[in-house]
């Protein structure tokens, strides 16, 4: 018994230590292995500052993230902290998936960009901390531009100029100037928003895109499609194929995030060598679309306080700035965004793109307001199908948009009452 006693004591102590240790599971979207070093040191620092808390980092592929998250929730082993695109927050919020971070965000001591925080706020409740941000720039192939007899000063700056340019380029070369998905995950709502035509009212209770101006603006793009100035598949291909068509040399220009420059550099170095970057196309309202990644604490977490604490550590100015320096993304906190890193002179393509995007961030907002609605996917599909019908000539633009607006109103009103 005397021999057993120290052994039992050790067992008890080690059990006690295990109980005191908390493990927070943290999921990111497709950031490994590129950012392994960043996360290893960040997690090591956090664990050093918080003895007894362990962070288990799991990186999941972007396309499988939602299904993996839902499967884990069903299986009862959902992560504590999860990185999601802000586009999905409304859907998950309607499932009561998130812990309320309102008070913690307010007390955290750093200032999130209001336009980014707005994407994470539903009915006054903050369900996620904004993380890294992105906005759009215009990437173009300088070689193709010159071959077509254009110079950089001919590049379009507004949507109106863009439409004229697309026509001129095709007429001169017989090739397509731009790939833009207008009928699948359509970017036309972005164009409408930038032109000052909102998709819905501010309360997201009524569709507002089928005004005379909205119809006229959309009709210009429908006409472009019908007359063969846009690729036939631009009504069925999703946005994820934009970069593919550019790096394959099929189109002169694309509107995308600066973050994709590194992908083009890796996949198509020749195209990258001829790539130039210009400010994003804007409409009369001068606004840009804001794309945001966010970090949420799940409502099923057994360690909400610790998970929230880690979330705020991850998104603090120092860590966000360090992350942005490794990528071509932007931090969502003002303290980090003020760093000279984002205004530094143009040393290469990435820094030029970064500076251009950073300058646009104050005017960047959620132009596709319907993405803030829990049934955004139903609304999006309804709009997409309307554009497809208009482009294929099944309906006129007015009929298609009126019909879509009717469907939207039925959905939006259902949730109001």
């Amino acid at each position, binding site marked *: 018994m005397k021999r057993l006693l120290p052994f039992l004591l050790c067992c008890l102590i080690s059990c006690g230590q295990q109980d005191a240790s908390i493990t927070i599971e943290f999921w990111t979207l497709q950031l490994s292995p590129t950012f392994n070093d960043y996360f290893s040191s960040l997690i090591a620092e956090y664990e050093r500052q918080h003895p007894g808390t362990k962070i288990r980092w799991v990186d999941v592929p972007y396309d499988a993230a939602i299904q993996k998250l*839902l499967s884990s929730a*069903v299986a009862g082993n959902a992560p504590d902290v999860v990185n999601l695109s802000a586009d999905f927050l409304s859907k998950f919020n309607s499932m009561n998936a998130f812990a309320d971070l309102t008070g913690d965000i307010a007390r955290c001591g750093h200032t999130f960009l209001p336009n980014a925080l707005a994407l994470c706020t539903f009915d006054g409740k903050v369900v996620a901390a904004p993380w890294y941000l992105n906005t759009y720039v215009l990437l173009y192939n300088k070689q193709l531009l010159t071959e077509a007899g254009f110079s950089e000063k001919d590049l379009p700056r507004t949507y109106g100029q863009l439409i004229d340019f697309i026509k001129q380029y095709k007429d001169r070369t017989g090739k397509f100037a731009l790939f833009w998905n207008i009928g699948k995950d359509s970017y036309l709502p972005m164009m409408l928003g930038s032109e000052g035509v909102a998709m819905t009212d501010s309360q997201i209770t009524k569709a507002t895109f089928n005004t005379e101006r909205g119809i006229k603006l959309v009709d210009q793009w429908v006409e472009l499609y019908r007359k063969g100035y846009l690729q036939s598949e631009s009504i069925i291909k999703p946005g994820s194929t934009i970069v593919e068509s550019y790096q394959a040399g099929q189109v002169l220009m694309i509107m995308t995030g600066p973050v994709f420059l590194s992908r083009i550099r890796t996949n198509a170095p020749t195209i990258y060598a001829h790539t130039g970057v210009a400010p994003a196309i804007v409409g009369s309202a001068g606004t840009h679309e804001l794309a945001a990644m966010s970090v949420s604490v799940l409502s099923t977490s057994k360690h909400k306080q610790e998970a929230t604490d880690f979330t705020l550590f991850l998104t603090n100015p120092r860590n966000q700035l360090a992350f942005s320096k490794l990528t071509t993304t932007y931090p969502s906190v003002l303290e980090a965004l003020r760093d000279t890193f984002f205004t530094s002179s143009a040393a290469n393509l990435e820094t030029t793109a970064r500076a251009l995007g950073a300058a646009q961030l104050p005017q960047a907002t959620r132009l596709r307001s319907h993405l803030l609605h829990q049934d955004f996917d139903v609304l999006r599909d309804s709009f997409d*199908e309307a554009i497809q019908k208009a482009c294929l000539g099944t309906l006129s633009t007015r009929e298609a948009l009126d019909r879509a607006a009717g469907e939207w109103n039925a959905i939006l009103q259902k949730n109001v009452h």
Partner: protein
Amino acid sequence: MKKLLPYLFLLPACILLAVFVLYPMMQVLSFSVMRYSFFGSNKFVGIENYARLLTDTDFWRTFLNSMLYILVTPVLMIVSLVLALSVRQSIRKAAALRLVFFLPVVTPIVVVGIMWKWIFAEDTGLMNYLLSLLSISKVSWLTNYPTNILSVMILTLWRGFGYYMMIFLAGLALLPQEIEEASVLDGASPFQQVVHIIVPHLKPTLLFMAVVSASSAIKLFTEIYVLIPGVPMNNKTLVAYLYRQAFERFDFGYGSALAVVIFLLTFVFSYANIRIMERRA
């Protein structure tokens, strides 16, 4: 013990079936009468999900499209039989042809999808290029309904005939050579041989193929997913609609109701096929 032994051998298969087939089926059945919640408790809604199907226009359109895809079945069977008859000789050329015909079956579907997307690309694809040589104007192979359904059918045929050809070849291998030789001596033409000897002999094979290919047509999804993912839902099939509801919109209850309907449809179709073929036999 001797009596029990066969059942013991069957047990592992039964356990696997129960865990991986029966249990998920029962779960889907139970989800279909619930409003499914991922982060809370499920709510029993009775037949609400099934009633919703009746008034859902997308459901009926995708149902009709699935029925349309069944048209692939007879074409697939005829093409496969013709190919099987043409390559059944044991000459070296036929062996090479067998390999060529079977290649689409073993090619990964994603590769097949990319390849056919290039072929059907409306501005730069091979199909429209060939048509332009014949002065035929551009065809909307991917964007326009029902041409895009035809494109998926072509892909399905191209991918499927090699598999069914092999099954026919297996059936033909069992055909006694003497019967064919006797028919030649009696003056039967090749066509008469096919109609009066080969087809009756292949009846069990035909039955199997009719059931399998018809149920595959009802369950068609991957081909649509890789070739025309971005077209409106009313251009797609029932399983694509199920996928959207369950895995894109996360409405598991409604998705499960759709799954039950697809199961019943496949079951009824297969059963009817078997009965019809048996009666004819």
